[in-house]
């Protein structure tokens, strides 16, 4: 649950644009962010609990959050025909897969989800500002390209370290593009002054564990 409404607890996947118009459940406009960098495993688990579970798989290359014995547990099982709607390359690899893997990937059908996942990796602390007036992740060529080959690698070699390091590099690059405050460690921060100047929302408070709470200005997202 990278983002959570502080009012009602509604959680949102990384990069969700739902928050832009306030919480759909309670209308709240304050969200806390839980960075994935410090605790990638639990975040992956959290992500698996949300409807956008497959994003964690796409971004980390770990399809292992899915238990092979319960391939359809708690998630939609898309019919094979819908596979590859946003990811044709992956569909070609179906032959040698377990049902769990294909189910896991079959959720990765939305190109917007792939894009969002690619831009928000577990190492990222830039996610806090994803709902800013920065260019939307879909405008960035890199994230749309990378998750696809990674999803293929997931099917064939789930633990390929090369893919992991490539993703790390991508995350670093995206961090450089997006983030306004980088939390190096508790008490150590790097600030991107231009980003801070450009952003719409106020930062209310940094937390010791690396989260921070932001306040969204009234009328934000209306324009």
């Amino acid at each position, binding site marked *: 649950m990278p983002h959570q409404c502080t009012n009602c607890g509604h959680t949102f996947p990384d990069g969700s644009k739902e928050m832009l118009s306030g919480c759909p459940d309670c209308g709240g406009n304050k969200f806390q962010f839980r960075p994935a960098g410090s605790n990638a495993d639990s975040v992956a688990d959290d992500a698996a609990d949300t409807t956008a579970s497959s994003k964690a798989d796409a971004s980390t290359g770990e399809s292992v959050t899915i238990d092979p014995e319960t391939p359809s547990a708690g998630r939609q099982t898309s019919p094979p025909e819908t596979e590859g709607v946003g990811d044709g390359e992956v569909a070609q690899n179906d032959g040698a897969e377990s049902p769990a893997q294909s189910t896991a990937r079959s959720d990765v059908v939305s190109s917007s989800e792939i894009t969002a996942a690619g831009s928000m990796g577990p190492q990222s602390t830039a996610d806090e500002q994803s709902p800013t007036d920065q260019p939307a992740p879909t405008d960035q060529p890199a994230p749309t390209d990378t998750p696809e080959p990674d999803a293929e690698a997931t099917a064939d070699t789930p633990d390929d370290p090369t893919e992991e390091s490539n993703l790390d590099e991508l995350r670093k690059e995206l961090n450089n593009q997006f983030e306004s405050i980088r939390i190096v460690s508790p008490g150590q921060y790097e600030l*991107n002054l231009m980003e801070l100047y450009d952003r719409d929302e106020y930062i209310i408070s940094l937390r010791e564990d690396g989260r921070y709470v932001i306040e969204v200005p009234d009328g934000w997202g209306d324009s």
Partner: protein
Amino acid sequence: MMGLLTNLRDSISRVTDRLFASEEPKRIGIYGPPNAGKTTLANRIARDWTGDAIGPESHVPHETRRARRKEDVSIERNGKSVSIDIVDTPGVTTKVDYKEFLDHDMEKDDAIRRSREATEGVAEAMHWLREDVDGVIYVLDSSTDPFTQVNTMLIGIIESRELPVLIFANKTDLEDSDVQRVADAFPDHETVPLSALEGNNMDEVYDKIAEYFG
């Protein structure tokens, strides 16, 4: 949270002021890197014209971690009165590290908290620069190198907003002070030498404030 509410309330009252007052005080932000003497200057101005101080001064960097303001400071110049709101902002920097506070007899927990607050303060100051100031006094320690990334970036932002800006070359009382170096760094702007601590050259400071922000 309270700070935000205060900000919002102030913003609203500011809009209302705009609607009903023909000439409201200009809001002048005092910006600059940490330890340039911004609070010392703000206190000097506030004490000279209102009798009150704005906030505590300190040689420890990031003493000011929340913007503080003094409203409706009336400065008399040449028989005319110029009214400004002074906003003393946290020192702007690209890196905050709690370790730099450990040298100042601070416990690690306190240093980390101070570091966090300072970072929040910079974020707030940058936000204000975008929305809440009508002019900028940019304060520099004239005994240090003015060619820094932070100075260049902030002056660039201020220029892009076309805000009136004065460069204050502070700490002229220090032996290493080099006002010309500051003036050379920002040739497009007026540089005023001063020692806010000693109160040196404050007449020219107030002349320029009245001229630029009145």
